[in-house]
């Protein structure tokens, strides 16, 4: 599958440095720890729900690491916590969506270069195409990175987005995390032809089907794709093969559709453990470094949890104030009525 995209030269960096590899590890540990903690938060009643990404840390950290936040823009689904963390988004503001504070999260998407958290499956893929075409119209060199999954690949909007992007040569990187499961439905019952990447050929879009659990492979592929799109060659599709090790959400019960044996076989080796072994083998990091990274992750999680616990509800007036830029008399009247009847003022 890789053969479709020529090895990019300018723009794609050479081999990763030891510092970069260690940073990738630290990010993956931070994401892993926050992710597993968030499930605990839900069980403890700190947040009402969460969509875990256990097992997808390499795919998310590796791809997010390739983003240049001074010029690129990222379009997430509801399961890109690892991407957000890698991009340096305020994580209390990000996780607030799971606290049910505000649907899109409290972070500023324009400053973060991360579109609001998107609950519609494949909902933001077309937005990436529009944003990317805007770069072309403006003569800028930003690239749109859009995430979706194997389940979302069934949506018509993904087809429209890939066709539009290819016709317009829009600088878009379509990043598919094929995690094997769309809630309870496995990829073989979801994706005809067995691969989303294979579809790209039909649009004349180069595609990379990669080991999504190898963070180095993910980062290198994403950098190649960015270089390709940034150079005016149009969109690229990356299909990162990974595995959703946890449930779809904290309300899900995978025991109803897959056995523990199937989970073990499908999941393969933990991507975090794979990077750890690699760093050890290459003599880039030692146990002290890993312990330090974990301690930092724990401290970070504690800070984020404290922030989430301290997060009050947004004022009800925001329901009305944030609908339009220019409000309407009807909305003002409803707000006044609400204020009078609920706040007794």
């Amino acid at each position, binding site marked *: 599958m890789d053969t479709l995209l020529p090895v990019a030269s300018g723009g794609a960096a050479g081999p990763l440095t030891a510092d970069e590899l260690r940073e990738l590890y630290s990010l993956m540990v931070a994401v892993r720890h926050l992710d597993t903690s968030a499930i605990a938060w839900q069980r403890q009643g700190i947040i009402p729900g969460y969509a875990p990404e256990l097992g997808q840390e390499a795919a998310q950290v590796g791809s997010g690491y390739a983003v240049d936040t001074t010029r690129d*823009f990222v379009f997430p689904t509801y399961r890109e916590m690892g991407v957000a963390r890698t991009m340096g988004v305020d994580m209390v503001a990000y996780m607030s969506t799971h606290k049910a504070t*505000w*649907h*899109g999260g*409290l972070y*500023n*998407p*324009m400053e973060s270069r991360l*579109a*609001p958290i998107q609950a*519609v499956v494949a*909902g*933001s*893929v*077309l*937005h*990436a*195409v*529009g*944003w*990317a*075409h*805007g*770069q072309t*119209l*403006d003569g800028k060199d930003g690239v*749109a990175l859009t995430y979706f999954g194997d389940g979302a690949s069934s949506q*018509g*909007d993904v087809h*429209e*987005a890939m*066709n*539009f992007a290819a*016709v317009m040569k829009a600088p878009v990187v379509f990043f598919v995390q094929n995690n094997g499961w769309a809630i309870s439905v496995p990829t073989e019952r979801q994706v005809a032809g067995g691969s989303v990447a294979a579809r790209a050929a039909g649009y004349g879009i180069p595609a990379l089907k990669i080991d999504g659990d190898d963070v180095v492979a993910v980062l290198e592929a994403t950098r190649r794709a960015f270089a390709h799109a940034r150079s005016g060659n149009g969109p690229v599709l990356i299909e990162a093969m990974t595995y959703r090790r946890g449930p779809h959400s904290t309300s899900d019960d995978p025991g109803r559709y897959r056995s523990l044996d199937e989970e073990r076989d499908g999941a393969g080796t933990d991507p975090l453990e794979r990077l750890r072994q690699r760093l050890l083998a290459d003599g880039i990091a030692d146990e002290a470094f890993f312990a330090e990274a974990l301690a930092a992750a724990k401290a970070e999680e504690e800070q984020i949890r404290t922030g989430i616990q301290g997060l009050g509800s947004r004022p009800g007036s*925001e329901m009305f*104030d*944030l*609908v*339009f*830029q*220019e409000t*309407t*008399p*009807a*909305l003002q009247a409803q707000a006044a009525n609400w204020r009078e009847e609920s706040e007794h003022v």
Partner: protein
Amino acid sequence: MSNSILEGVDAAGDDTAEKTAENTASPASTTVMSMQQALNRALDEVLADNPKAVIFGEDCGRLGGVFRITDGLQAKHGVQRVFDTPLAESGILGMSVGLAMAGFHPIPEVQFDGFAYPAINQIVCQIARMNYRSRGTMPMPITLRVPSFGGIRAPEHHGESLEALFAHVPGLKVVSPSNPHEAYHLLKYAATRPDPVIFMEPKSRYWQKGEVDAARHDTGGGSPTGAKVMREGRHLTLVAWGAMVSRCLQVAELAAEDGIDIEVLDLRWLKPIDAEALAASVRKTRRAVVVHEAPLTSGLGAEVAQLITQSCFDTLKAPVERVTGFDVPYPSGDLEDEYIPNIDRILFGIQRVLEYKRG
């Protein structure tokens, strides 16, 4: 009201409004043009005024749109400002969201009303909510032009009236012009707003000519978002929008022959609705009939009737009457005239209100 008003009514010919307009003296800034020309001119000026405005959709570029509303604009403003997209409405509207995020003012066209259905997900779940979802940091200044309503003997899904559907969605604004002057000014206004506006063009009126006073932003009182009294009267208010306005004006002329003095209120904005204008008119006339092409049940007429009832309950002489399309799929051209409120049906509605007896 006697039955005599219903006699001798000619359902054909719908040009009373134009004749009336032509008979009045015109200021120098006035030009006679069709609604198609007025819309085209408005878009031309919007493109010239705002370098971030872009027009796109199916056949909008070289062809100038199937109704020629964007005729000549690509040649004048370039293929980057006015361009054709692949034939997919969700793609067009989804792309608009991304362009708006990138600082553009997209003016997409959905070729026909019914073609908006495949794009409903992007309109309802994305365009309407992005400002809210992003806490006001990602406004959606998208002006979605939709050739709307029936009356041109077109195929299925080419004659729909979607205003109630759009008006029900939080985050959208909806407007429909009734004549060339309104079309010019309302489109120029809508296309400079920071919020998404669904601009419903009455396709059956595209080729009717009327005076456009480019210098006169608003007439008939009220703000750019207000309703407009198109004809003053004392006995009853006809509330309408889009293509139904000229029909109601014609009805008013006919009723006047029998001494019934009808006020015609062009609602213009279907969201937000100008409740004050409705109240002001009906407080005076004490009777109202709302006319629309869309099906009756849960149509915008119900909203209008409630607004009037709320403000004028004590003074109303009769319940607000609705003269509308029926709760049926929009019919083929042969049955179109049976479906769209015609002069007879509007007159019957007026009669029911005038003859209403309490108790």
